[in-house]
């Protein structure tokens, strides 16, 4: 195709959108709603995933032993823990190590304060296994198992209830996939309708083109451009809106629900948008292309 023809085709595509304003607007609005919801869920899921990952990388479960347990029994418990598939790593922390850590954490370099406890380790009974997991959704199963072991006094879970977190995450995942699928169908349907109307409006013109000897491609291209442009606009608008909203919401939650701050760390907007922008654009353009492509196949048998 010649350069002037490409320019002409693109111009005709925009002409289609313009002549068909109401339908085009409706399509763009639906697309926008679609992509907006998608972006919303995308942001939530990405954030939760980051939280789950963080939770997974931290100590999930700590196991304390009965008083007067022997080193042999502790070793046996260690071996049992090591056999579990969901466990990625476990470390034995002796009472002395626990105390050292506690001291540095709470007294820092204040030798004086720590000196008061000199010979009497207040954590004498605090030997433990720290367990790291590779699949945090298995945490409650693991805790049940560990509680039942001979010689285990207490099983402590990390402060983030990882189980709920990952359950919630997959629930959101399912809901969003569901909603998005429905909305995508609606969007494809609307774009298809818009293009159908466009074809109807230009029926005479198309007939003339064919008689003059226009190729299929020449006849079809403006409608493809129309669909793709609708898709593009329908994804750029919600992306801008999401970008603004995301920052506002982070600040808002940080102020109003400050107690959540220790629990939740929102990802910076750039990190979410790094992947959201290409995904949303591809989605929008893809839907636009598909919507017009299907319609052309049906109504433009050249």
């Amino acid at each position: 195709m010649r350069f002037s023809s490409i320019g002409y085709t693109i111009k005709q595509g925009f002409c289609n959108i313009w002549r068909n304003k109401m339908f085009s607007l409706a399509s763009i609005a639906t697309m926008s709603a679609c992509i907006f919801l998608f972006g919303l869920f995308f942001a939530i899921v990405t954030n939760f995933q980051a939280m789950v990952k963080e939770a997974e990388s931290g100590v999930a479960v700590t196991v304390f032993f009965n008083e007067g347990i022997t080193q042999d029994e502790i070793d046996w418990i260690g071996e049992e823990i090591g056999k579990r598939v969901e466990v990625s790593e476990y470390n034995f922390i002796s009472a002395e190590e626990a105390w050292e850590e506690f001291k540095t954490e709470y007294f820092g370099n204040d030798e004086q304060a720590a000196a008061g406890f000199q010979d009497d380790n207040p954590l004498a009974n605090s030997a433990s296994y720290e367990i790291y997991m590779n699949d945090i959704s298995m945490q409650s199963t693991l805790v049940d198992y560990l509680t039942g072991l001979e010689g285990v006094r207490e099983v402590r879970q990390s402060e983030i209830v990882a189980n709920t977190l990952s359950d919630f995450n997959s629930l959101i995942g399912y809901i969003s996939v569901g909603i998005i699928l429905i909305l995508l169908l609606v969007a494809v349907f609307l774009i298809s309708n818009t293009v159908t109307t466009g074809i109807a409006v230009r029926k005479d013109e198309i007939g003339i083109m064919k008689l003059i000897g226009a190729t299929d491609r020449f006849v079809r291209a403006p409608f493809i451009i129309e669909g793709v442009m609708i898709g593009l606009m329908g994804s750029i608008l919600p992306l801008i809106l999401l970008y603004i909203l995301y920052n506002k919401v982070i600040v808002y939650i940080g102020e109003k629900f400050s107690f959540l701050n220790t629990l939740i760390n929102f990802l910076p907007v750039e990190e979410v948008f790094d992947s959201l922008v290409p995904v949303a654009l591809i989605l929008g353009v893809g839907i636009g292309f598909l919507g017009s492509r299907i319609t052309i196949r049906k109504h433009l048998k050249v």
Partner: protein
Amino acid sequence: MIKLEHVSKTYSAGIPALNDINLEITEGEFVFIVGDSGSGKSTLIKLLLKELEPSEGVITVDGKKLHTIRRRHIPKFRRNLGVVFQDFRLLKDRNVYDNVAFAQRVIGAPVRESRRKVPAILSTVGLAAKYKSYPKQLSGGEQQRVAIARALINQPKILLADEPTGNLDANNAWEIMKLLEEINARGTTVVVVTHNMEIVKAMNKRVITVQKGIIVSDEKGDDDEI
């Protein structure tokens, strides 16, 4: 240039619109096709354009057997043919110049070429002064001239006209026919379907009469040497 051998066309299981047509039109000829409404004249034109496929028989246009032309080569084939209809079929939202240039657009001709050729063809059809007018600002005769200019801009070897004067008064009809004759004189093969027997008689060209899908007479014109 155009040859039909035992061509029949039957629309979905009815009586045939064309029945065993045999016909040859040589290069440079001017041919009228006449006949009552519903006798199959438009069907014949559509077959020549490969808008329709014949139910039987072989059609040859410009040396090509139409049934051998692949779907994706139809556009290229049609560029050899100019077509004009009773209802003009102009684009209402474009002016005269753009309507004619549109035919160049469609075949991907460079804009530079259009700028040169469109004014030339508009003066051939006598519309050079009205290139900025829109179809609704023109008379029927003028609109048909635009349509003829559009049909000719890509220099087709054959011009097919399906009742080109059907919507025109006697004067305009005459002028359009004279224009078609002029175009024929420059070498284009012209096939005109018409009802206007007065003009047909006066012009002394070859006349093919169709009745109920059958050719009932084929009379050579006085000044035809063929």
